[in-house]
């Protein structure tokens, strides 16, 4: 079933995909173990997205406890942030580019301890793969 990006249903589908993913469970077993592993994914507005969206994904020890779109571009419960224009995210989620490339080239900004993120590359790659696996209807570019 195709889900619309930015909706509660899309966020719930992401939670289900993460918790059903053996790749994520293995890769992220130590992610958030004793520290805040919640990640805020920020999709900033650009030609392909009329308004900025932020998705708080609550993650610890290879599991997801919830995900919800939240207002603003920062959240007190987030331990890490990944922020990029929506067009960059769209390329990542449609597998045209690797999330690692976006992060390592600076097209995707990292908030939080970058070295911790580097030590768990398989975990965030698996997270992105879960998001990419959702059959998604993305917003269309605004006219004019």
């Amino acid at each position: 079933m195709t889900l619309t990006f930015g909706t509660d249903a899309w966020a719930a589908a992401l939670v289900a995909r993460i918790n059903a993913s053996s790749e994520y469970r293995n890769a992220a077993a130590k992610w958030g173990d004793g520290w805040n592993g919640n990640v805020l994914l920020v999709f900033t507005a650009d030609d392909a997205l009329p308004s900025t969206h932020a998705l708080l994904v609550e993650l610890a020890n290879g599991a997801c406890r919830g995900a919800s779109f939240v207002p603003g571009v920062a959240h007190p419960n987030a331990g890490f942030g990944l922020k990029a224009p929506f067009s960059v995210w769209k390329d990542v989620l449609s597998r045209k580019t690797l999330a690692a490339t976006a992060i390592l080239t600076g097209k995707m900004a990292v908030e939080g301890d970058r070295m911790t993120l580097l030590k768990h590359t398989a975990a965030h790659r698996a997270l992105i793969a879960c998001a990419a696996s959702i059959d998604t209807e993305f917003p269309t570019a605004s006219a004019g």
Partner: protein
Amino acid sequence: MKPMTRTYYLLYDDLRVFLEDARRAMDTSRWDHLESWGAPCAQGTRPVGGMRQVFAKWFYPFHLTVEYDPASPPDDAMMLEGLRPYDNLYTDDCPTIEFLERMLPVFELWKKAGTWEFMHPWIECVLPWDTAADCIEQVLADTPPGIQVGGHVLLWPAKGATSRSKNFMVPAGENLVGFGLLPAIPQKFWNEMRERLENVSRMMLMFGAKRYLSGWVNFTPDEWKDHFGARWDELVALKRRYDPDAVLNPGFLPFDVAP
């Protein structure tokens, strides 16, 4: 140089134990040659970014060699004292001249197998000791065991003060770790491998490494400047003076031809 060598073929299953033993081996005066690398043991497939890929448990062979006179062979127990390998596989006695040529059969095998003709976009670096294990573990977790086909995973401990070349850039520190992926890639797979290899290079740099410039380097001009740091301006000045037409580095270092 003494006429004979004895090499102890040790195997490690834990990178961090290997690195500690490597440092211990460097800090003693017992050894004449140290050699090590990464060796994968294929375990099956698992999803990587949603796509199934063969993965490996990585082991670390460590060959420690001492030269000796036949009349006074080394005391094995004393030589290996304090080291903690997963296994001690073999002890090889070999004339020193043959020891020095030990890699020739490997190169011959690569030629016979055909991989000599493949692309060799080798990604090597020198890592700070403190970040080496984290970086190597991250890179190897994503490295399929097929890299062994005509290729190699470079791994060598080194002392930071060994090289006195001003333009051989290495991180600061008493101890360093050389690390690299040395794949042989059929030309038709280059496009799908290129981004991954570029990310390996970027990750090495983020862990504080300096690239070892013998392999495939695809730096931007800014990355070249970062690599040489304070030495960049002098390097450019020397280049302009002694190689004004950029004859010696076509397509490599981004030196402009002198106006």
